[in-house]
């Protein structure tokens, strides 16, 4: 992507909103992820899921996080001068994500400040939320991400 088309720190002022999704959640994807990372019965077997507290074949919470990560990448991260995230403040799995659900939501910029220790880098605090097709919030999360400042014209490359 040409440098001038990238989103930089200056493009992520507090209040900026990026839409996430929609994403269809399929039984095949739920089972494939769970077989590798979280093979509990309610994540790999529809009947066991229906009999569980979750009420159906339910995505592993880690899968929901990974799906949300992909939605962020597609919405804005891949066109952002991002340098990774040091971690995640919290993830709340508010409702089960079930096979057949359609997830959508948004990332909102909460706060943005320049790094004191690393010139040219800003720390942007993000809040993410996904809802299912009936409007129930299924996941909420907050994390900081490092984003480069826009290069100065005429400055060093």
């Amino acid at each position, binding site marked *: 992507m040409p440098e001038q088309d990238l989103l930089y720190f200056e493009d992520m002022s507090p209040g900026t909103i990026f839409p996430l999704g929609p994403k269809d959640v399929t039984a095949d994807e739920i089972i494939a992820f769970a077989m590798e990372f979280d093979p509990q019965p309610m994540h790999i077997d529809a009947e066991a899921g229906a009999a*569980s507290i979750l009420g159906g074949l*339910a995505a592993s919470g880690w899968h929901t996080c990974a799906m949300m*990560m*992909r939605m962020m*990448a597609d919405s804005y991260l891949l066109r952002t001068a*991002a340098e990774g995230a040091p971690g995640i*403040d919290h*993830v709340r799995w508010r409702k089960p994500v079930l096979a057949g659900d359609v997830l959508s939501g948004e990332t909102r910029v909460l706060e943005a400040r320049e790094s004191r220790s690393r010139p040219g880098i800003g720390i942007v605090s993000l809040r993410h939320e996904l809802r299912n097709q009936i409007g129930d919030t299924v996941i909420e999360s907050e994390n900081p991400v490092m984003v480069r400042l826009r290069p100065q014209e005429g400055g060093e490359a």
Partner: protein
Amino acid sequence: MSIETDYELGVRRDLGSHVFTAEAIIAFARQFDPQRFHVDAEAAKNTVFGGLCASGWHTSATWMKLNIRSIENDVAKAQADGRTPPEFGPSPGIRNIRWFKPVFAGDEIRYSRINRGARPLNSRPGWSVLETSAEAHDKAGNIVMSFDSAVLIKLPEAGD
């Protein structure tokens, strides 16, 4: 059976180790986190990480993989000994995920779990919330990841 005796509160439980191959790092990242430092070894050289490294979600989900394996072994052992194993429910969430250092292709990462405590859940009689800390270390002993999680757990009735 009690949380204190059977859940080794405050004791670090080794969950085994996992080697992150370049192929697996790229396969996970292409599906879930296709940032350049996770999918392209050449492009990764020019980033802050300096090389191809695993998505933090890949590193963290692998803790779950080894944690589930450990729990399955415990359940099988309990059943073999004629004891009733606990039942696990969903998790309300995780906090304080820290990705301290990148996990590069070829790194062998060792995972562990420390059960911090448990409290009965008023809304679901018989169930408790078990609080756990997760950690991952590289071969040199450096911590690469940690987080705090919670999970619903139903202990067998007394006498089981």
